[in-house]
């Protein structure tokens, strides 16, 4: 053979060999949480996870492999990591269709669900507004709320920041509105300007923060100095990491993913963690919600199947994703909603 041809065969052989051997490397690694894969494909959390109160499953068993078609989901960037994890698992366990999830903010998610009718499920980190509910009804969709988890909204600073440890709700309001420098909040803090990184106005996180801290008045926070807004929480993380005088807030999962570079601030003396959030002691805990409609769930059975799967298995994944489980009653209530929506008696 000529040299060129020999070289070509060698390269092809290497490529095929690499493709073959590396299939094994691409398999998902098991880690401490996901210990067992039983023959039926379900997984169980290990004892290392804090015990999530298991909700009694009121739902009939369901096999993802029986369903196909598409599921279109859009909404909250906070709920996004959780929805993505559940969608991945749903597909791993045999779902034959396509799931698309867009992270665009709760407000934008409701827009797509209730006004343009493009999506099957809306993710939200705040409850639906009356005007949005009206718009949905005009489209023939009666929105049903499914509570799937709880978030402790984390107010974070960079690890380099060594002076802020606790803020009262009043101080928090001033940090995000009229104060110019840190010294304006407490005189012993440095007289450096406060750099603020917050979710944009389309975000449910923004709406929730404004509701709790500013009593629904958007003006003080939107007129603050040095304000950077983005629906993409990763943009905020990068900004806050970059300076010891920066502060921002977003869903707990984004803090946990970057816990090596960020530090949560205690609000009214309470830090967010599983205990304080579940007990409701942390002032900024809020629900993680899915909205769909009976008309959609009946017309597209794969949507109902996905929600069923979500409700059944969310507590196995939610701590790993970085959020906190909803109470057993809330999950059971969601399951009853599901049964009613698909037409089976609760």
């Amino acid at each position, binding site marked *: 053979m000529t040299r060129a041809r020999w070289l070509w065969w060698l390269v092809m052989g290497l490529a095929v060999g690499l493709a073959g051997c590396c299939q094994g490397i691409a398999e998902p690694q098991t880690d401490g949480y996901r210990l067992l894969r039983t023959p039926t494909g379900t997984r169980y959390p290990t004892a290392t996870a804090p015990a999530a109160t298991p909700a009694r499953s009121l739902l009939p068993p369901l096999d993802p492999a029986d369903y196909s078609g598409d599921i279109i989901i859009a909404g909250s960037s906070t709920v996004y990591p959780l929805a993505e994890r559940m969608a991945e698992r749903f597909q791993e366990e045999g779902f034959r269709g396509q799931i698309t999830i867009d992270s665009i903010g709760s407000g*934008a998610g409701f*827009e797509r669900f209730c006004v343009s009718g493009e999506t099957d499920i809306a993710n939200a980190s705040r409850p639906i507004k*009356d005007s949005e509910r009206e718009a949905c009804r005009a489209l023939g969709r009666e929105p049903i709320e499914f509570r799937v988890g709880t978030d402790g909204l984390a107010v974070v600073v960079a690890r380099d920041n060594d002076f802020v440890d606790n803020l009262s709700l009043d101080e928090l309001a001033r940090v995000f509105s009229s104060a110019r420098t840190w010294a304006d909040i407490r005189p012993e803090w440095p007289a450096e300007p406060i750099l603020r990184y917050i979710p944009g106005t389309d975000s449910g996180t923004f709406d929730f923060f404004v509701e709790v801290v500013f009593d629904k*008045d958007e003006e003080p926070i939107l*007129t603050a100095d040095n304000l*950077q807004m983005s629906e993409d929480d990763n943009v905020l993380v990068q900004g806050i990491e970059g300076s010891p005088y920066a502060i921002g807030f977003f869903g707990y999962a984004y803090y946990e993913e970057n816990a090596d570079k960020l530090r949560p601030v205690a609000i009214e003396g309470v830090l967010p963690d599983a205990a304080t959030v579940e007990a409701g002691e942390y002032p900024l805990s809020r629900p993680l919600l899915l909205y769909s409609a009976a008309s959609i769930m009946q017309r597209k059975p794969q949507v109902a199947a996905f929600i069923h799967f979500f409700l059944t298995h969310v507590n196995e994944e939610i701590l790993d994703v970085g959020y906190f489980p909803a109470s057993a009653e809330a999950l059971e209530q969601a399951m009853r909603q599901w049964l009613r929506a698909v037409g089976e008696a609760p």
Partner: protein
Amino acid sequence: MPDPTPSPAGGEIAAQLRGRPRRFEAAIRWALFLAAALSIFTTIGIVYELGRESLNFFTRQLWEDTNKQLAAPIGPDDTVLPVTRSGAALHPQDMIRVEDEVMQVLAVDEAALTVARAQQGTAAAAHAAGLDIYRGSRVRLVEFFTGTQWAPQIGKFGILPLLNATLIVTAIAMTVALPLGLGIAIYLSEYASERARRLLKPTLEILAGVPTVVYGYFALTLVTPLLRAIFGKDVVEVYNMASAGIVIGVLVIPLVSSMSEDALSAVPQSLRHAAYALGATKLETALQVVVPAAFSGIAAAFIVAISRAIGETMIVALAAGAGPNFTFNPFEAAETITGHIVRISSGDLSYDSIDYNSIFALGLVLFFMTLTLNIISQRVVRKFRQVYD
């Protein structure tokens, strides 16, 4: 004199000389004309669309949700409205809307508003409890061009922060791109050997072909840390206008260099020979004879580069900042016009909301800026053009 009577054979020759029918030629000509006309139609379409939506923005009343609701039902004659305490703060003279009725606020109390009913031609009606209250704002042209705060959600429509950031980023980009681009062009046309040219030109093409989103991440992950290392972490913020400006400059260098090089090559050799004959060095010839002779082409290149830098979106969206900020410090984060349009529209706009209408007005401003630059460029080119033989 011979009698010039046409013979029968002469008739055929005459027919041949009249020429073959050129119907196909005519069709091709029309097709090419339509292709060129398409560019005109596109421009007209853009201007029409921008203009119509901007007119909406400037003339209509825009309503924003105040997050306040009626606390109790009211009748058509009530002038004191009970409202929820939460939500935006209202002031006397504000126009508010409940359902289809517009009212004007006369006095504001803790939990009640005194209003004048049925304003702006709407009819007074009874309203149920729990209805949303919207506040109206009208954008005044003066406020649009001189206001220093851009926050449509709360009725602030001053374009200056966005415009200022656009201009600063463009200025930084030009200080990077113009000297370097012109230098590369002079080198390529006056000094470079054939081998150097064979290496440089494709490299410049590659630089021009890199997607702008990659440039944006390049700014964020390489240029910003570099600036922070040089100037200090507390001087340079994570998102800043300087690194976006520098990278836009790098993006635009191939544009400047290729257009300038074309202009420089078009200068006839006779000018250079004349300069050498007078005893000038290569540098003197290049800078004092060739560049001034090619000035109109170089000016055109500069202006095209400025237009490109003003309209650049992805790099500023990723690296320059995510909030309008009126500052002259290039190391601070500030949002440009294009970055703002991208951020607002990536979160799903509803038609006819404040944000939707405002981005068309911003787009119109950008369009007029580039149109002005084009007109200036044409004037400059015409004024300084030198025609050789």
